């Protein structure tokens, strides 16, 4: 058999690849295996072969939210990293920048996302939200106003909501 025929065969075998790796997946492999999580965070992968979808659990050890375990889902979209991953909080919590549906107001998840950023940038951003809730960029307006008006009362409401239960008609998840 000639060398050329062998070459053709190899090319044909390569073309028969059933599953072309897409660009989002390539970049995700790098970003996921380079996740640098502090000891207060844990990433959970229900399916180790699918790292486009995973969960992040944040357990702050300081600030108002210390002692809680907060769950977030990450979905890396097909156009990653041109488009940011979709991140949502899966629990109902009392936080000025996270609404009751789990939407998060974090600039790098939307308007300030850039392809040079990576999953670590988002993780740092989320951590910061729990250390420094920001009442000037509210998503849960009531919570933001509460924090503005009376931070001590806001803090005690946060602690109560973290235990779970109904407050002002809203049923919060127990996160401790």
């Amino acid at each position, binding site marked *: 058999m000639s060398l050329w025929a062998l*070459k053709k065969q190899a*090319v044909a*075998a*390569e*073309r028969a*690849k*059933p*599953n*072309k*790796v*897409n*660009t989002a*997946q*390539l*970049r995700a*492999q*790098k970003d*996921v*295996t*380079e*996740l640098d*999580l502090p000891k207060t965070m*844990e*990433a*959970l*992968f229900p399916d*180790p*072969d*699918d*790292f486009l979808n995973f969960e992040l659990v944040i357990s702050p050890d300081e600030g108002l939210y210390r002692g809680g375990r907060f769950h977030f889902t990450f979905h890396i979209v*097909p*156009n990653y*990293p*041109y*488009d940011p991953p979709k991140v949502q909080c899966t629990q109902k919590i009392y936080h000025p*920048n996270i*609404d009751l*549906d789990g*939407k*998060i*107001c974090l*600039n790098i998840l*939307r*308007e300030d*996302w*850039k*392809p*040079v950023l990576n999953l670590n940038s988002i993780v740092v951003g989320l951590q910061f939200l729990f250390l420094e809730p920001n009442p000037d*960029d*509210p*998503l849960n*307006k009531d919570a933001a106003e509460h924090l503005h008006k009376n931070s001590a009362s806001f803090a005690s409401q946060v602690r109560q909501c973290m235990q779970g239960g109904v407050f002002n008609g809203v049923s919060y998840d127990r996160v401790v």
Partner: protein
Amino acid sequence: MALDSAKYQALYRAILPQRFPSIAMADVLSATENSAATDGAVPTAADTDEIRRLLHDCKVLVVGAGGLGCELLKDLALSGFQDLHVIDMDTIDVSNLNRQFLFRLSDVGKPKAVVAAAFIENRVQGAKVTPHYAKIQDMADDFYAQFQLVVCGLDSVEARRWMNAYLVGQADLANPDTIKPMIDGGTEGFNGQARVIIPKITSCYECSLDLFKKQMVYPICTIANTPRLPEHCIEWASVIAWPDHFPDQPVDTDNPKHLRWLYTSASKRAEQFGIRGVTYTLTQGVVKNIIPAIASTNAIIAAACANEALKLVTSCHLHLDNYMMYTGTEGVYTYTYAYSRRADCPVCGQESKHLTVAPQLTLAELLDLLAESPDIQLASPSLRSAHTNRSLYLQAPPQLEQRTRPNLSKPLTELMESGEEIIVTDRRLPIYLSLVVSFSP
């Protein structure tokens, strides 16, 4: 530009090897690698007959039959290209008619590729245009293998990334027939760009992805609480109000009922906040992310792309190296520069390495091999099959490491087929390595 002419000549030969039968493959490759070689002369095609023959023989794929695509087809056909194919997944909308001049009112609803192809064939004598009413992602490898050149007039980053990654993936420097240059045009209002990508030789689309800024996105807290612009109200309707009302149904931006609902709720919200300017057209523009298209910008960019196609195929002059920007919003400004290849580009930066190993080798032993082998030397690699998407071994985060650790003691035969491609990354190095592992008989 004399400095690089030898490189370019070699490139032309590499692209059109059958047309330079006297050039040995080894020369092509050594000249390609040796970019500092100087030769002096700008390549010129022998004569008009030769040019005609080249244009006749060259099969060009035009991707997209929209604003840029119509211009590209016209320009390429009138430049003498005689075997054109055009692929587009869209049908003609009445709003296309102001600039997509190959279409008439009676064509509304018909596939763009089919109508455009028929128009060009009818108008330009000798031009054969084959339409494909399909998605680029759905075409088989045989389809792309038939072309010498791909010219893109696309409207999304996603489609460009796919086309680029595909062409780079197929390119094998040892087999010049597989290297298909991609000429990519793009416009946004009065601005545009044209670039020439020669897979695995010049920088690719993905190499410069980090430089792009995302389209206009509004902060979600502004949308939710402090809208100031009509756009904020429309975004509120589509991002917040719609999922609240129809949690199980995503917005279909092509469905007039959905758009009408969004328009109505956005209007109510605007009224509540005393904001003027929410219209049905603006709603359409915001939710469909419509970028204003200027007919003449399309004409400028398409013309630049068509000329590059002509130069690449005939070698009559040096081609664009490799990116031209055109700015029409600040007076007029154009600039050309050569994007460099990125060693850590996930698409073209990955080197392919072939390894032949004993089938009973365990994954742990393969890792040792990667660490020891002098041309690889990866100390903490993460491995994943490009074939099955199976995670073979991932170094981090801890949960993935634990779950993939049992694979380390397994023989490779349990984890993969012979000849399978493995994507290797290493957190200490900015690289992607494509590893093809074959089992020795």
